[in-house]
């Protein structure tokens, strides 16, 4: 022991100094129970503590995590070899039993995370370090879906009466709602809701850490101005969800810089294409949006470049389809604008469709959901005004706007989709374009319905060959472009800021992966 110490000193090896990383965003983590919600910020944060069989790197590519390797046994059965010598934070070893247990726990009534695992049929133990995952049908996205099955400890959950997910119906709190025991890069040290959550680096983590942190302090700060000010005052090392108007100020401060990149989220406008009489409109007895010429006229009346210039302060990525080109399977060749900005052509189309003087319609926009959502809508209102379409604005907080979307109480509405948590193209097409039924088209508030499109969905959902799958997705996207199902605007920016010398490894899914952060 003394000898070893002497050796250390003589070789000049210095124990790394403690590095604390303090960061803020606008929301707090909802629960420490990874199965109790499906809130994307919570999911992202919980990956510090709990890990799945696979994980995303900063380019949202799948890499092995608790599983070392996998192979397909049959079209519906995948075999996963688990990593040996992984330990939970309390020192228990990780085995196949924990995987099977986690699968069972995520099926319990209170679990909301199970919504993301709809294609998995069963998880079976083969031996202590091997599990088989069976899907309901051949399913190409199993790995992406398994990102959501974070592994909890069987023994720990049983010892603490937390074998079921936190359940709002139970009216009592679950042990796992405040306490954690994962395998991840960080260990929960303390948590005060809406004040701060403190994590310390896991000294026995199985992976070689890319981060150099010893402690992570997360503080939610709701007010944008306060968050930016706190950063500039030096109290924080980094903030996410930086308002665009603060970018200039942060960059000119000298000690801080902004990191920006395109988010996976695409923002677009939807139109009611179902009702026989449009809501909130002066057109009676018919629905102009059922006519593709009218939809195309709106498309051509909106200048996405002008929105980028004057609303988004130059940081948006104008889009030609409703899915980000960075998503898995996205047909990148179809991201050019399908029709050019041309108000004259728009007026002509409206006249052809029987509305030479335009018409009046309501526009439903959230005002606290997307980057500059309200401002974008205001800009679009003035653009549409130039071709004769008068808008009655209906701008609301997201909590209200969501209700409208769910009840299809819409006429012309803004919406966005990021294809998360799987970061794949399929979810967007399935949610927003697939015919709205009890089990599909959950976000298709305009209720567009096209059998040819619907026929493509199961094919995309089960095609195992990536190239064939990409071709099918391209076919589906082409339908949405030709039919002007939606009017895509852009990918919005992710805006983070940090002290100089802090590398945040920004990812397009807007998840801050603390285990990749380095502080100098």
């Amino acid at each position, binding site marked *: 022991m003394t000898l070893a110490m002497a050796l250390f000193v003589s070789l000049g090896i210095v124990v790394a100094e403690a590095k604390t990383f303090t960061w803020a965003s606008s929301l*707090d983590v*909802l*629960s420490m*129970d990874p199965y109790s*919600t*499906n*809130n*994307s910020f919570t999911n992202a944060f919980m990956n510090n503590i709990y890990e799945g069989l696979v994980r995303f790197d900063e380019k949202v590519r799948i890499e092995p995590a608790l599983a070392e390797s996998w192979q397909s046994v049959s079209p519906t059965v995948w075999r996963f070899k688990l990593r040996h010598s992984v330990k939970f934070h309390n020192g228990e070893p990780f085995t196949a039993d924990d995987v099977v247990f986690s699968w069972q726990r995520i099926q319990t*009534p209170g679990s*909301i995370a199970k*919504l*993301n695992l709809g294609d998995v049929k069963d998880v079976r133990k083969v031996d202590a370090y091997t599990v088989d995952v069976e899907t309901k049908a051949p399913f190409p996205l199993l790995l992406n879906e398994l990102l959501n099955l974070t592994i909890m400890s069987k023994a720990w959950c049983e010892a603490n009466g937390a074998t079921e997910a*936190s359940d*709002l*119906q*139970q*009216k*009592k*709190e*679950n042990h796992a*709602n*405040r306490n954690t025991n994962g395998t991840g890069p960080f260990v929960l040290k303390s948590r*005060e*809701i*809406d*004040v*701060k959550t403190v994590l310390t680096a896991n000294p026995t983590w199985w992976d070689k850490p890319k981060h150099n942190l010893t402690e992570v302090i997360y*503080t*939610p*700060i*709701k*007010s944008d*101005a*306060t968050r930016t*000010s*706190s950063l*500039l*005052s030096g*109290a924080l090392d980094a903030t996410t969800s930086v308002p665009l108007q603060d970018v200039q100020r942060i960059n000119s401060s000298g000690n801080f810089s902004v990191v920006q990149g395109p988010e996976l989220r695409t923002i677009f406008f939807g139109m009611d294409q179902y009702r026989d009489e449009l809501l909130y409109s002066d057109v009676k007895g018919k629905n102009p949006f059922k006519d593709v010429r009218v939809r195309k006229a709106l498309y051509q009346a909106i200048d996405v470049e002008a929105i980028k210039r004057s609303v988004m302060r130059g940081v948006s990525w104008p889009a030609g389809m409703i899915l980000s080109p960075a998503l898995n399977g996205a047909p990148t060749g179809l991201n050019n604008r399908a029709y050019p900005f041309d108000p004259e052509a728009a007026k002509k189309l409206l006249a052809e469709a029987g509305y030479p003087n335009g018409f009046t319609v309501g526009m439903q926009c959230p005002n*606290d959901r997307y980057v500059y959502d309200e401002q974008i809508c205001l800009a679009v209102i003035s653009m549409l005004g130039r071709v004769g379409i008068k808008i009655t604005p209906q701008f609301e*907080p*997201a*909590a*209200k706007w*969501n*209700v409208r979307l*769910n009840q299809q109480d819409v006429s012309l509405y803004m919406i966005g*989709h*990021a294809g*998360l*948590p799987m970061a794949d193209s399929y*979810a967007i097409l399935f*949610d927003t374009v697939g015919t*709205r039924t*009890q*089990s*599909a*088209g*959950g*976000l298709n508030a305009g209720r567009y319905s096209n059998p040819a499109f619907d026929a493509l969905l199961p094919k995309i959902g089960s095609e195992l060959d990536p190239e064939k799958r990409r071709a099918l997705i391209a076919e589906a996207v082409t339908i949405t472009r030709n039919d002007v199902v939606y009017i895509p605007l852009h990918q919005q920016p992710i805006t983070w800021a940090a002290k100089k010398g802090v590398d945040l490894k920004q990812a397009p899914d807007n998840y801050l992966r603390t285990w990749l952060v380095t502080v100098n």
Partner: protein
Amino acid sequence: MLRFLSTRLWNGALVMIGVSFVSFLLFNYVGDPVNNLVGESATVEQREAVRQSLGLDQPLVVRFVRYLGLAVRGDFGISYRNLEPVGRVLLSRVPATLELSLCAALLALCLGIPMGVYAGIRRNAWPAQVLQVVSLIGISVPSFVTGILLILTFSVELNWLPAYGRGTTVSLGGWTTGFLTASGLKSLVMPSITLALFQMTLFMRLVRSEMLEVLRTDYIKFARARGIAERSIYFRHALRNTLIPVITVAGLQLGALIAFSIITETVFQWPGLGLLIIQAITFGDMPVMAAYLILIALLFVTINTVVDMLYFQVDPRVRLK
């Protein structure tokens, strides 16, 4: 006195039931918590299942009666936002808000009343004029502007005070206090000023105008004629008679400080009730909203009852009636 009190309590109970029902009605308009729980990709079926499990598909009246039944027994349900018992969530936020409101109220009363007395007595002196002008600013500038200006000056530029939070707190038998640590006290400064500013100027202006009014009355003139010392006239006779409206307003304002510190708490990320309710509203966290509104109604009813009883002490005429 007893009869007076029992009428008050009866009125109070009616107010409470009324408030809780109205607040329940309002929940129909604040949005849907289901979306925040299930995420954007959920299907209609999945949303409905969650809605049903929360009992949100039931008619409003059924939900209200069920809620009231449980609430009477002290069970306010589970917060949708962080899955904790609502009672515990609310109680854990009370110390932060009470400490902040207390500091703000003391600041407002201890500065506002003397300033008002001064401005009333020496109304033509230039400091009194300055106070009048400054108080106009205090009354008209919204508190988020004051808060942000303070943050920019004292956190960003001078780096003297923290921009957010309560600093280090000490737990004394379930009550977390910021009074016992240096960082806790430093954190209190800016939020207290921000919250107190409006009330302070309000008290100042109120006391000033009441003083002016009272100083014009006959009994003051007679007191002067009898040769009573000025000091005694101002503080024993005049000030005491200005206090009735001041107590009324101060009582209501104390309630307002606690209930409506929402903006100040949001600006400074002060983990009190105000921040809690604004987050509950954005999330659609109905159990927390309902319990909060009942708590606030209770607070106002209590304060007003106490204020009415204070009249008894201060104004003999109330007793005679």
